[in-house]
């Protein structure tokens, strides 16, 4: 049995198809990432898994329980870390955790032990008596995660848990995710940082405009772009002549220009780059900067959509 299974899930808001026949699955003990730019439909998909939105069609199960037919059982096996910090700012970290623990049905000594344990996991035991309102963004994010772990759920869904925080807190959170996963939790992790998806995931679903446009392991996804390398160039002038010349250069499979940056996908940069410079010299265009990137998820996204993952 898969811990998470989503089939043909659909949701629209008026004319907007926010989630469009989406499929993905995560085996127990896996980390699955949903990678996609703003507005891709990640949060909408997660809201349906968490029972907050009713799907227009399709099905979703958590630990075998349908989120629509048996929401109570599905929710009991699930911890959700919302994209927004959903905590009470006028209560202390501990008071927040105790409250959420109670909402998940914990009581008495078991509750207190679990709160102690979670405070330790998120590294805030020392600050537990302070009001959340006084915490830094990173600390709030950590409590936000902690509140979803109290009842030791089989599945944890984290919606962009590292948005807008310092590198140190981000490191802490990523390490937490890996540690929790080692203890057997299945994690569904959404992000628009491809580095996070690459580091954490067993499987990655790339989402764009409501659809899953690619699904697989990191290695499988990279193969989609072949072994192609991405080259970002900036030029001293706008020139369509050079674009045409480069497009026809041997070894170049794709060329895009956006915001003064020209992005090319090439077979082997060592062979292609000299040809590009030569063509530029002939067209009387100067290349002012060069950035070479070996294949990664970013280039996969570019390959599939023609757009950059981050705007």
């Amino acid at each position, binding site marked *: 049995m898969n811990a998470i299974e989503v089939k043909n899930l659909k949701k629209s808001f008026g004319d907007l198809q926010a989630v469009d026949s989406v499929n993905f699955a995560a085996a127990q003990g896996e980390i699955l990432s949903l990678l996609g730019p703003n507005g891709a439909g990640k949060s909408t998909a997660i*809201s349906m898994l*968490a*029972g*907050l*939105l009713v799907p227009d069609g399709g099905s979703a199960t958590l630990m075998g329980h349908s989120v629509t037919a048996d929401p*109570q059982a599905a*929710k*009991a096996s*699930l911890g*959700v870390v*919302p994209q*927004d*910090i*959903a*905590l*009470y*700012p*006028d*209560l202390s970290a501990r*008071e927040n955790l105790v*409250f*959420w623990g*109670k*909402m*998940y*049905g914990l*009581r008495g000594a078991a509750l207190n032990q679990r709160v102690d344990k979670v405070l330790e996991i998120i590294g805030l035991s020392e600050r537990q008596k302070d009001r959340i309102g006084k915490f830094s963004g990173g600390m709030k994010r950590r409590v936000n995660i902690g*509140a979803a772990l109290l009842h030791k759920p089989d599945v944890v869904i984290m919606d962009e848990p590292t948005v807008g925080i310092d590198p140190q807190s981000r490191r802490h959170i990523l390490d937490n995710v890996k540690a929790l996963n080692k203890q057997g939790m299945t994690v569904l992790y959404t992000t628009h940082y491809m580095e996070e998806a690459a580091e954490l995931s067993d499987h990655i679903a790339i989402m764009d405009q409501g659809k899953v446009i690619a699904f697989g392991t990191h290695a499988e996804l990279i193969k989609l772009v072949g072994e192609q390398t991405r080259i970002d160039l900036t030029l001293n002038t706008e020139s369509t002549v050079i674009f045409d010349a480069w497009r026809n250069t041997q070894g170049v499979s794709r060329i895009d220009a956006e915001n003064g940056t020209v992005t090319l996908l090439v077979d082997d940069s060592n062979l292609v780059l000299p040809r590009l410079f030569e063509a530029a010299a002939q067209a009387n265009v100067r290349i002012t900067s060069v950035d070479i990137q070996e294949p990664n998820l970013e280039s996969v996204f570019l390959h599939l959509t023609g757009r950059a993952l981050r705007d």
Partner: protein
Amino acid sequence: MRILDLATKDLLQIFRDKKSFLFLAAMPIIFTLFMGFAYNSGEDGAEDDARISVAWVDEADNQFSELLFERLDENTALSLVDMEEASAMDALARGDMLGVLIIPSAFGEQAEGTSALGQITLVTDTLSTEGQSLYQLLRVPVSQLASAVEIGTLTADVIGDSAEFSPAFTLALEEWDEHQSRSLVRTEKAVAQEEESWFGDNPYNQASPGIVVQFAIIGLITSAQILVEERKNRTLQRLMSTAMRTWEIVAGHILAMFTLAFLQIALLVLFGQWVLDVNYLHAPLATLLISAALGIWVASMGLLIGVVAKSDDQVILFSMVAMFFFSALGGTWFPLDVSAGGFAAFGRLMPSYAAMNGLQNILIRGLGLASIWQPVAILMIYALGFFMLALWRFRKIGV
């Protein structure tokens, strides 16, 4: 159990906010005192002291003037104020005093020899009812004193020993007291109390329950804000992603709102009872039931405000609008009986009127449990209506 936990969390948040104390306790208590004071002075000046005020200008200052003072002062329909003549006349002109009684310096001086007490002067508006009653009130004690002096003088004359004046005089006064004066006092007192105010014998019978109803609604500012914040900071969505069912979440919040409203009502009722002498506890069970029904109605309205309002500012706005609307129509500021027909008829349909009416049945009309079933039923019907409306809106909250 989780419902209780949720309600406890709401109350913790409310009590941690310092302005809650202001809305829930300090302001209503201050307003109760203020309104009671306002109702009281709004009435005719003589009404706060039903006695007829008389300036007592004593130029004699001797045994006889003192005796007369004592006897007049015993009369509960009169209030004697010791004054100088000039200021007494001023007070009369201003209407602060209804009469001035001038005891001449020669009063009683020749009493022991000449059988006359000396003439006292009453300055008053003899055409007014107060002036007339004043004259009537003075006549008897003055003539009793005069006749006792006469008897004393006669006795001394007949025996030929002026030392016999005193015993005979005293005996005569005692005789008067035994036979007559008490009944006269009683009659006059009844006249002075003829007019009763619409708030009974205590202006706080209007002010205290009025503020109870009014501030129970204002108190929603604190409790409905909790729900609005919960929607805004998405903790409500988080609650819904736990195994809490929707009805449990609604129940927890409404329980917190009810508890808060009920505690506030209880505080103000006990303040009224113990500090302002408003007799809620003469029918304790009736007061408890009305308070609970009022709390339930207010809580259901709070749930609706909490579900509809988009921001804290809107919570304040809606709570204030509800407060003004229901206070004005429900007779919490002034009784509906004194307002125009259509307005009063509409007002009588309001839940706030039901609460007011129920409480005043207890306070002013001295009624008990039997008198409050109807108001309680009206409050519960409104509570149900607001609750259904809130539930219907609650389902539409987007995620």
